[in-house]
């Protein structure tokens, strides 16, 4: 099936409350797209934003949305049958290793959206999947039950220690990787977390893929808004999934990103 570039209005089939902050919206339509790809979701009257998709078996597709801004709060007010517009899927997909069957995924916050979809596909192909999910607290550990059901090995960590390891999932992964050998690692989450995982993987020579989020406008590679320095790669076409080797060429990774105007904005941890 081909990419859809003009918003397609679809009724919300089902709304699932995942936590205090997160709701999942399920759609009947069999939208194309693989793990790592995203759709642009039009919230009429508010905005259009990128969301990673999940295609669960026997379903069209779903997106999970945290109520963090005006438009996502508006989405949380919507009811089953209300319309959202979708175009996509956009961007690159995660690839499973051809050599070896043991993989790890490190997900921070909503990074679980693309990674849970990848975990589902990997389990179907009988990969051993280790999932390092990090969240503020127990309630925010997304899709833990679903992941356990499909046979992924969940290593939870929370900031407050309400479940699993108390602390960062990056630390938990680091100590775990001292004793375990992974054929490939996948990480999606806040860029500072992705940076730490990239460092570990580079040091240990583990192949890995990261999903790099940048401000999106067109989604299909013409506006240049999401191009990264110095390669110019568009995170909606050449990305968002970037291979660990290619990532070495993206100098802005972990340092800065661009705002809607195109102005460079340094991350708070980067000093002048």
């Amino acid at each position, binding site marked *: 099936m081909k990419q859809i*570039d*003009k*918003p397609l*209005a679809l009724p919300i089939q089902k709304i699932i409350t995942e936590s205090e902050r997160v709701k999942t919206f399920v759609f009947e339509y069999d939208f194309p797209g693989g793990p790592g790809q995203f759709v*642009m979701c*039009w919230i*009429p*009257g*508010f*905005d*259009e*934003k990128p969301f990673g998709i999940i295609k669960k078996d026997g379903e069209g597709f779903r997106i999970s949305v945290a109520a963090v801004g005006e438009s996502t709060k508006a989405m949380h007010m919507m009811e089953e049958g209300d*319309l959202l*517009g979708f*175009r996509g899927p956009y961007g690159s997909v995660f690839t499973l290793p051809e050599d070896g069957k043991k993989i790890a995924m490190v997900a921070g916050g909503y990074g679980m959206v693309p990674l849970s979809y990848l975990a589902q596909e990997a389990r179907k192909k009988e990969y051993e999947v280790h999932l390092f999910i990090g969240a503020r607290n127990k309630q925010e550990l997304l899709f833990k039950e679903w992941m356990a059901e499909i046979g992924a090995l969940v290593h939870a960590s929370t900031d407050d220690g309400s479940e699993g390891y108390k602390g960062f999932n990056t630390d938990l992964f680091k100590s775990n990787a001292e004793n375990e050998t992974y054929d490939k690692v996948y990480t999606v989450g806040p860029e500072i977390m992705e940076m730490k995982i990239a460092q570990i993987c580079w040091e240990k020579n583990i192949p890995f893929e990261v999903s790099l989020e940048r401000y*999106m*406008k*067109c*989604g*299909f*590679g*013409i*506006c*240049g*808004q999401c*191009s*990264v*320095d*110095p*390669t*110019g*790669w*568009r995170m909606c*076409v050449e990305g968002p999934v970037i291979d660990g080797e290619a990532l070495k060429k993206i100098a802005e990774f972990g340092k800065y990103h*661009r*705002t*809607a*105007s*195109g*102005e460079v904005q340094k991350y708070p941890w980067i000093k002048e």
Partner: protein
Amino acid sequence: MANLSVNLAGISLQNPTVLASGIMGVSSSSLKFVEENGAGAVTLKSIGPTERPGHKNPTVFAWREGIQNAVGLSNPGIENSIEKITTSVTQLDIPVFGSMFADTIDNFKRVGEKMASTGVAAIEVNLSCPNTEDDFGRMFALDTKMTSDLIKAVKSVVGDIPIFAKLSADSSEIVEVGKAAEAAGADAITAINTISGVVIDINMKRPILTNKVGGVSGPAIKPMGVRAVWNLYNSVKIPIIGTGGINTGEDAIEYIMAGATAIGIGSGVYYRGIDVFKKVTEEMSRFMEENRYKSVEEMRGIAHKAS
């Protein structure tokens, strides 16, 4: 490969493809990426007097025949852009054209003066953004007097740097506006900008774009672009950068036969990929070899000779 070089207002281009403003022009890295994919020259995204985030999404969408956008001239403002422009000029081997917009003639002069200091090969004056009427009022390119005053004013502050007037087919007077721009000192004309349109989602019962109205580009507007070049070619002596719906070498040659000296590519990046510049030049070369044209110049305006 046929010889595709052209001379555009004294600037020599290895091939006539020019990245149109507003596409891939946010950073010097993305422009370098375009150069690597075969462009003859690149135009930066328009820069204005102050930082603008642009309109809220949805700002762009596409269908088989066209792309509609109302990005709303998002840009970091001229002060924050000087270094970026200078870097682009240094890092690219092909000519880099600046592009600017503003609300008033004074602000155009202010931006133009600063842009002229960056070493750009030319400055395109965006007189015709269709998406900022609420902020800036009617576009300059709808009026011969305003166009003339603006071009004269910009010309007075940019020294020897050639300036291109970017015109709109939203004006039925495009030829008169083109003549006014030429008389005021413009060194070339870019025709055409996107054409203003409305697309409604009938299920949502509202226009798709947040701005409601937006510029249409892509194959849908090619005949209107060719017509503008066709009519301008009969009335002005300065070169024309034909722009609007060019996806193939054949499209490019059609514009050249209508009278264009160079051709702009924007939406083509969507329809054929980032290497559209390579594809278009290869296709042009093949056509020229098959039909024994020795230069682009030989084809320019040739369709006007038909009886």
